[in-house]
């Protein structure tokens, strides 16, 4: 059972103890993320967090990295639209000095000008390097096409002009805004006692100023209208990366769990409908799945496949048929019974390490999920009726409004892909290296 402790100034602590391995995980999260970035300065929050290890108090970046290594420890970042997390992990015997170092990074970042310039150049190089990743290109095109002007359309890493425009004053101000006690949630998992965790957590926030939790600036996203195609054109592709979808659900929707269950039947397991039809029967794609994204607001429903270029049009046509069949006819009682057994029994692997249990508790707290989102998950899944699952499909998904994003070589297959999408409206061809 994860323990929740209220700390000074509204900060919170979650602890999940396990002595299986002499490692301790330390997590410092904020209840805010890259959705706070302005359109012009996309990438600001993530860049700001990246600066925490680039100079603190009297330590240089190099001294910080040396110290992390010497302690047998690591620090990494995860920033998304709504929350951010600085992860630390350390060999248990070095926990004390690691906390001192971690606290120094959090309370006294110095934002040196030369390091800031260097970090920006690294991020720009990474953004350009990401053009090598076809799957990431397809996901980005999908996200942009689906959410358009909404903050969920953006990547936390930012854009090249956005990152290049940032100043150390921007980063300092951003840091001061987000790193206040009321906006912080700390987590410990692993080889640590509750008492020690509480002591170390208090040290981590000791010199962080008081301040309130930040309001989430994200409005509900608007659905797209009609069927659209974004073709990301890249030379010499023997294979395509395809993402097809629309808006999905919010964790607060009444039919969120029924839709999650129905989606698992469609594309959530190795024997799901998509996998069976696309991979097992036809051998068209190594993987075929569908998933529902979750965040504070309604997020995405997306099908993902990666067939050979020669099969791409046929694969899209098949997926649209399968999707239409799902929405119009729903799932069967037999499928529902099967998937409930899978979801209930496999839940053991969602909670089989202290770290996973901690992160469930943190997700609930940071994203404001229903309190029993994980703890009551199995019971809620088991209670879903066939009618609820099929009503959720009809209420939340539609065959009219769909976005197809694909990475491939346009001169070879773009025409066939267009023909494979009945009632296609807007369609764009985007060079893979446009930004």
């Amino acid at each position: 059972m994860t323990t929740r402790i209220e700390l000074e100034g509204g900060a919170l602590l979650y602890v999940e103890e396990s002595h299986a391995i002499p490692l301790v995980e330390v997590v410092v999260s904020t209840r805010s993320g890259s959705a706070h970035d302005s359109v012009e300065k996309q990438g600001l929050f993530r860049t700001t967090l990246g600066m925490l290890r680039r100079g603190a108090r009297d330590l240089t970046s190099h001294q910080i990295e040396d110290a992390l290594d010497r302690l047998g420890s690591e620090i990494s970042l995860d920033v998304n639209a709504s929350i951010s997390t600085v992860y630390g992990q350390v060999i248990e015997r070095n926990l004390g000095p690691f906390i001192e170092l971690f606290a120094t990074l959090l309370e006294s970042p110095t934002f040196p000008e030369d390091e800031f310039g260097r970090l920006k150049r690294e991020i720009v190089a990474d953004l350009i390097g990401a053009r090598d990743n076809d799957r990431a290109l397809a996901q980005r095109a999908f996200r942009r096409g689906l959410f358009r002007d909404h903050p969920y359309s953006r990547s936390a890493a930012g854009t090249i002009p956005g990152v290049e425009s940032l100043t150390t004053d921007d980063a300092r101000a951003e840091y001061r805004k987000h790193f206040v006690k009321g906006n912080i949630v700390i987590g410990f998992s692993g080889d640590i006692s509750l008492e020690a965790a509480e002591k170390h957590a208090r040290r981590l926030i000791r010199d962080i100023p008081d301040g309130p939790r930040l309001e989430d600036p994200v409005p509900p996203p608007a659905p797209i209208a009609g069927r659209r195609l974004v073709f990301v054109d890249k030379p010499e592709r023997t294979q395509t990366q395809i993402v097809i979808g629309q808006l999905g659900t919010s964790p607060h929707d009444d039919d969120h769990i029924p839709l999650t269950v129905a989606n698992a039947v469609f594309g959530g397991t190795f024997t799901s409908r998509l996998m069976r039809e696309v991979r097992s029967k036809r051998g068209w794609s190594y993987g075929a799945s569908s998933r529902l994204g979750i965040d504070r607001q309604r997020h995405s429903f997306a099908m993902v496949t990666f067939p050979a270029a020669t099969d791409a049009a046929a694969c899209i046509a098949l997926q649209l048929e399968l999707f239409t069949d799902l929405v119009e006819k729903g799932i069967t009682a037999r499928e529902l019974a099967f998937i409930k057994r899978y979801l209930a029994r496999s839940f053991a692997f969602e909670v089989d390490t202290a770290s996973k249990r901690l992160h469930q508790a943190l997700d609930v707290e940071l994203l404001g999920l229903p309190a029993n989102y994980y703890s009551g998950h199995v019971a809620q899944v088991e209670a879903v009726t066939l009618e609820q699952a099929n009503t959720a499909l009809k209420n939340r998904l539609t065959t009219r409004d769909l976005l197809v994003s694909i990475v491939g070589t346009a001169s070879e297959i773009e025409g066939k892909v267009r023909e494979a999408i009945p009632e296609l409206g807007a369609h764009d061809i985007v060079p893979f290296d446009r930004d």
Partner: protein
Amino acid sequence: MSTARAKWIEALNTGDGSKITFEGEVPFGGGEVLRYRLENGLRVRLLVDRSAPVVSYFTWFGVGSRHEKPGKTGLAHLFEHLMFNETESLKAGEFDRKLEENGAESNAATWLDWTYYYESLPADRLSLAVELESDRMAHLVLREPQVASEKEVVANERRFRVDDDIEGTASELLYKTAYTVHPYHWPTIGWMEDIHNFSPEDCESFYRTYYAPNNAMVVICGDIKEKDVLAKIQKAYGPIPSSEIPFEDTHPEPPQLEERRVAIRKPTPTEKLYIGFHGPALGDADHAHLTVLNEILFGGRASRLYRSLVIEKELASDLRGWVATFRDPGLYELHFTARPGKTAAEIEAVLAEELDRAKKVPISEDELVRAKARLELSTLQSMETMSGKAEQIGFYETVLGDASVSFRRLEEYRRTTMGDVLRVARRYLVDRARTTIHVQPEEATSCAPASPRGTEAAE
């Protein structure tokens, strides 16, 4: 052996079934791996770990792409896919369905020296894994429609892992160039032409040869009862006959006497380098020392090459080093991605200086301490989950015949001296034993040399 264990083994062995032999315990972390063997040669390794109500069940086969022949490459990997198909008692798709219905996670992997299959299940579902795995070890059905469809899946896997992926293409080319006679020359996934040409007969022959209990090991880790598990294993696997495993007639790779270089062009914005030095086998004492040197050169942001290439000279955006963990001598691989507008030649010049320094000047005591601490952290991280532990046990047992090596490696890292590091640098970082794959951007996709607004030149 404890008296209690001797008694219940004797009880298990009183029937007609295949006899079980206890082969001792091997320390593993705070616990111990129990080693058993059935009469038909099946090795069984158990680790009782009650930290979560789950169990991981790995089946390792001592066959990988090194056992293939030219013209038939990729068969070991194709086979990994086929093992999820039909058996005499299960229709196509039922294997996965039964596992999913019971909440299991399952997958498989093939590499140069081995193939494994695993299931992680709620602890009370262990019997299902025993039943399914023993069934497909003996009763797989290999028919044309499934073989044909699975060949297509693998061809698609090859497209995304190799043909459309720069790192996959370069890595394949690196091994193809660095090895000339040893089977590490070809990729585990196989050449595309070979994948398309396999027949059900090829698969059947491979299955009958290599998928036998005397070429396999079952590793079970988790919330288990030793005696109950062994009784199940004995009953399910005991009747499976052993096979005649062919003598492995592998030629060692002759010493590489001159540097090899290959350049390719790809639609990528930046230049890349993939370098391989012929290195030690996993079982060689030098392997741990070279791994320590690799940490000093590439491990983390305080490492020598990260500092030099990323921070100080800003020539690279990504770099990695890895000492291959193969049964026979593998490569010490170095990967570099140049910054937009920078060249591989600029990176190579800095690399040459750093490697030269590593061969001439002893590392510092401080560097050694940091490298050892990082390696201890990563060793512990690999044991965080039940499947992580089972994989470690199976990997070291399969490649080196000893599960305890994963923890002994930590001791080897701790014992490594500055002299060891200097010696392995001189022994392995030899230019004539080096192979380099240089990836260059095609004209249309290259980034112009860096300038104040250089990053926009590509737009």
